């Protein structure tokens, strides 16, 4: 049973989901039309025509629009796949990561299931054009992985709502799914490492960590991932806005806003992440958010006007400066 905030987040994903659902329905209805035969054409005028319209002679007029397909079986199988997915409703877009299970695996499985719709459309297109079924057609209808999706398919991909325990939120390998309009929204329970999503920051990807649901400022288009860390005391909150379409943009620092940092640096292991690995997330966040000094100023005087910067630089080096100094500086920069 999804939590109330999960439902709220769910609604945020509503637009992409509605579009995808609509495409599923629209496609299944198209297949239904293709499956209609001439014989079925009789009676299409309904009961009103009884006595008034000669249904069978009328259906000859309509016949042109109901071509009989020789591949009805494949079309029917494709439609059944679509109906099965439609029948799942919003569950199609929800992922619950079992305690201790891998996030990547769960996401891959969910998109593999959503991908069945694309596989079904391909099978139907091929069947309709009289192309024989490929060797993998039947397999693809059971699972069709994200890696096989076309650009257009990735553009219509619905967002996923992923419920996961903070200790299990390992983002490694998720970049694979951040393309087109894909959105991965994590509803995180319990404690979390400080910046589990930091590793997913890319120039073209919206990445945000938040304690609450609003406001993400998530753009309408483009890949995105967000984590709602309502119960995680030790989590940072930040937003990375993607660079505009086709822009190389300035450095990531210019689009990354860090709103809050944990009071103290992690000192014990969480799940499979050691304290050090967790501190590395903070360092990575710092590294990405600091304006490169040389490029920005070129003059030593600027540096001296920013008293915290020296410390920050020191903190990001591997020398093991206390993490709380970094935090203090980042916080002073936070809005």
């Amino acid at each position: 049973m999804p939590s109330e905030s999960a439902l709220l987040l769910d609604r945020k994903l509503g637009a992409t989901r509605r579009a995808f659902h609509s495409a599923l329905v629209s496609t299944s209805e198209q297949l239904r039309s293709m499956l209609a035969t001439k014989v079925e054409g009789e009676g299409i005028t309904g009961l009103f025509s009884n006595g008034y319209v000669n249904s069978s002679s009328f259906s000859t007029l309509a016949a042109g629009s109901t071509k009989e397909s020789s591949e009805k079986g494949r079309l029917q199988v494709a439609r059944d796949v679509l109906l099965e997915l439609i029948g799942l409703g919003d569950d199609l877009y929800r992922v619950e990561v079992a305690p201790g299970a891998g996030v990547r695996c769960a996401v891959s499985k969910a998109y593999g299931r959503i991908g069945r719709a694309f596989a079904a459309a391909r099978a139907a297109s091929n069947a309709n054009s009289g192309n024989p079924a490929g060797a993998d057609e039947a397999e693809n209808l059971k699972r069709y992985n994200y890696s096989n999706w076309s650009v257009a398919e990735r553009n219509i991909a619905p967002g996923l709502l992923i419920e996961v325990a903070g200790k299990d939120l390992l983002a490694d390998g998720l970049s694979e799914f951040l393309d087109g309009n894909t959105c991965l929204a994590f509803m995180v329970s319990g404690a979390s490492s400080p910046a589990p999503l930091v590793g997913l920051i890319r120039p073209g990807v919206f990445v945000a960590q938040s304690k609450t649901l609003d406001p993400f400022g998530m753009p309408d288009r483009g890949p995105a991932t967000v984590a709602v860390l309502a119960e995680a005391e030790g989590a940072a909150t930040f937003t990375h806005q993607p660079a505009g379409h086709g822009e190389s943009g300035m450095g990531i620092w210019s689009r990354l806003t860090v709103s809050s940092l944990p009071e103290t640096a992690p000192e014990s292991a969480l799940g499979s992440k050691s304290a050090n690995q967790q501190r590395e997330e903070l360092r990575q966040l710092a590294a990405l958010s600091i304006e490169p000094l040389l490029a920005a100023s070129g003059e030593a005087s600027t540096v001296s006007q920013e008293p915290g910067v020296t410390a920050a630089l020191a903190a990001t080096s591997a020398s093991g400066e206390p993490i709380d100094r970094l935090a203090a500086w980042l916080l002073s920069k936070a809005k």
Partner: protein
Amino acid sequence: MDTSLLDISGAADERTFTANDYKGPTARWCPGCGDFSILATTRRLLELEQLAPEKTLFVSGIGCSSRFPHYLKTYGFHGIHGRALPLALGAKLRRPDLHVFVVMGDGDCTSIGAGHWIHAIRYNPNMTVLLLDNNIYGLTKKQTSPTTPVNYKTNTQPKGSYLNPLHPISVTLGVANASFVAQTADWIPAHLLATMRAAQQHKGLSFIRILQRCPKWTIDIFDAKVKTPDEMMILNHANGITDPKVQKMYKNQMEHDPSDLDAARALTGMTSHIPLGLFYKNEDAAIYNELRMNKSFTTEEKMANLEKEFDRYAV
């Protein structure tokens, strides 16, 4: 909402379009007509934005400018006088996958279709609306239009038109829920293109009044403007429409914040110059076609729901 997975399956979507892919039959406007420039710029826009021709729809009313869709190789709906906007709204309502453009003349939009104009601005559907304003009825041969300058002699008002013209930008800005209002001119293609791009990318109804030369009936009105670039006032702003070429070419420029509705309205009263650029933009305006989106249902689901309706009415 109508995207079919059949359309996008496989490699079918990996296409690149050139301006030629949008080219229809040769246009038959008078030589020197501003519509040619707008048509060419439109093709350029379609290419830049890589809009699939089969997903692009141009809707028009009646008049010289309304022949526009015929000269493009996209889908087109050449409707009736003044009624392009309801047709376009109808098209967009259940087909958000279509890129909808509306092309109207000044008689079409501001006279016979004025009611639809007001309401389309309020509905704010996601589409681009071009008002090709040549200040005259062209196709029916030089009758006064609502934008004809006062005292201008026409066939219906041979002693000169009686009233001051209405200002299409001012009217549009007066309608609740206006979301993108710009003015440009057909003889400044760079500005025209920049405006159309900004409009196409805007979510909601973008209304562009394009000052359009008519070489046949109102050449005297526009000739001076074309020849006197100093009459133009280019509106600049970080959130506005900027084009480096235009900024270089035109002497008169001013900062105007397009989020400032009062300032935008005040600009419509400017008599010293003709302001070109983005008057107003509001990205938060409600978008009717998006508000009206609802869930799709399969035939099986609809039948089950209709049975429930029957149950309500069963005795």
